[in-house]
């Protein structure tokens, strides 16, 4: 890691203390160049079909609208369990992601299908609420039956340099999660630079995140390949340092299967095969599922498909 030598040696004398201002700086041009290389891999035929199935199995099928209703969530859960019944043998998606008030509905609808219920919490998407409200929000979602919690960090505090506040908050939410796995949303579109993305990733992982996630989907730009690459490299460095695996979830703006396959290539080449399952990698998406299904049907029939013949979600 290209951390500055002098400050590094001073901290390594004592016990491994954390100073997040020491997160490595990111070479913007290099990262973007590297990320664009992943898009040139050619994936065809069987490899493509397997890749598409893997993508489908990694999707967190998401609905996070103010207008969400129980009916909408039930429909989404049905879609999660039966992506496209005309094509037998498809995997299900990984999880359904909803607001806390709809977790119970999703839990009941999914039954024992094995599909996880993920819930956003902590005053999603802004995160502008006092900590006790965020903790209650989290506990409520967990008590309703959420298997996974997607929290947002306090970006305002982060920009103000109050890294300890951000760290403590994540640690407190992690504790409130109990058995549930914690995904920490950095909202990279609001962080501004790759340096800050890297720093926020380091804070989240050290504070106990099980996953780090790019975006809420409410802010543009959402997930991009360079930003995801920065986070994947943070996960790699953290793994080498601590031996603990952390998952990655790009979310927002990934709606085409081809792009999703590029992401898988990136995961494989940065982190390796171990991360290529839905235990360690997820896509936060809603329209991606249908595009993957259309490509799978295209691969099987040889005929280009129309969205008119796939379920609305």
């Amino acid at each position: 890691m290209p951390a500055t030598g002098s400050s590094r040696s001073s901290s390594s004398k004592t016990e491994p203390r954390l100073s997040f201002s020491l997160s490595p700086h990111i070479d913007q041009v290099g990262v973007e160049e590297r990320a664009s290389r992943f898009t040139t891999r050619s994936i065809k035929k069987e490899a493509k079909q397997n890749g598409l199935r893997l993508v489908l199995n990694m999707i967190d099928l998401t609905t996070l609208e103010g207008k969400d209703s129980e009916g909408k969530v039930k429909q989404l859960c049905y879609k999660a369990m039966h992506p496209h019944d005309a094509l037998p043998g498809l995997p299900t998606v990984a999880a359904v992601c909803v607001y806390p008030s709809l977790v119970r509905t999703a839990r009941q609808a999914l039954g024992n299908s094995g599909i996880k219920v993920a819930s956003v919490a902590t005053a999603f998407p802004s995160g502008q609420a006092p900590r006790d409200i965020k903790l209650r929000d989290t506990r409520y979602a967990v008590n309703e039956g959420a298997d996974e919690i997607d929290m947002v960090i306090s970006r305002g505090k982060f920009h103000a340099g109050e890294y300890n506040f951000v760290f403590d908050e994540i640690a407190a939410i992690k504790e409130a999660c109990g058995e549930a796995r914690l995904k920490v949303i950095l909202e990279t579109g609001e962080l501004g630079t790759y340096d800050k993305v890297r720093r926020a990733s380091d804070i989240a992982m050290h504070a106990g995140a099980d996953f780090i996630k790019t975006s809420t989907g409410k802010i543009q730009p959402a997930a991009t390949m360079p930003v995801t690459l920065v986070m994947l490299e943070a996960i790699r460095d953290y793994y080498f340092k601590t031996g603990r695996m952390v998952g990655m979830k790009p979310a927002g703006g990934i709606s085409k299967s081809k792009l999703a396959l590029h992401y898988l290539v990136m995961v494989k080449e940065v982190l390796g095969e171990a991360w290529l399952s839905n235990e360690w990698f997820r896509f936060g998406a809603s329209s991606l599922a249908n595009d993957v299904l259309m490509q799978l049907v295209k691969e099987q029939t040889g005929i280009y498909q129309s969205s008119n013949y796939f379920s609305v979600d």
Partner: protein
Amino acid sequence: MATSSKNITTAPSNGTGTTPARLEVLKTYKIYIGGQFPRTESGRYYIPVNAAGRQLANVCLSSRKDFREAVVAARAAFGGWSSRAAFNRGQILYRMAEMLEGRKTQFIEELLLQDSNRRAAEKEVNLAIDRLIYYAGWTDKYQQLFSAVNPVASSHFNFSAPEPMGVVAIIAPQDTSLLGLVSVMAPVIAGGNTCVLLGAEKKPLCAVTFAEVLNSSDLPGGVVNILTGQPDELAPWMADHMDVNAVIYCGQDTALQQLLRERSAGNLKRITIHDVTDWEENEGQSPYFIMDTQEIKTTWHPVENIAGAGGGY
């Protein structure tokens, strides 16, 4: 491509004077998809030759993937185009005619290169302009002509009106470079459809230059997409594609006609065939050509029996 366009020999350069003949800058003929001018993704090109044996240009040999991209662009443009006011569609068609008028000489030159003579070339360009004006006038009138209020036996207000079908794939007439293409395209977009158009294989120059006219005439990107290439190669993909609602084929190839009809049987696509239409005559324009790519939608609207309900107005 720049390198192979050197193959196109031009004015004789040897011998006549002391000043060297100027090397002509030749235009690269690209395809037109979604308001952009990309090269074919396949990297394949062909060089059409005129009757005098002169190589006309280096032209894209479009692949099925170019067609697929064009359909995606056309589908994306359909909602906006079909919901525009009919009068506005007329204005835009009129604008296309204006722009074509302004570039008349260029089209005449290209037609001369493609085996026409000056009188015939001028007539063809003038007719193409007039044809655009003709359909510009029809955009807000054909609905009245072809809709109806239907007498029914129950207490319903019942009416039928034409609505655009969606995305239309067109194989333009192969014997003319400009007039045939304009004559087939204009009624399709006048009626609110979007289209993917395959220009004449042996005479492709005007198709690409016409795309430049479209691009500068307020027509939203994706409403008309123009490819160059072989009808035999692309026709099966047109007929199979689930997201194409109709195919118009202009030509006498009965095997191709049969192929289109057979392949479209499975996906209920409408096939229109022009095998004897003379585009230079009056039979080359008709409001019925607009109806070739319209669907008649009928609405049953219940009529309240006011007297029976005891209402007082």
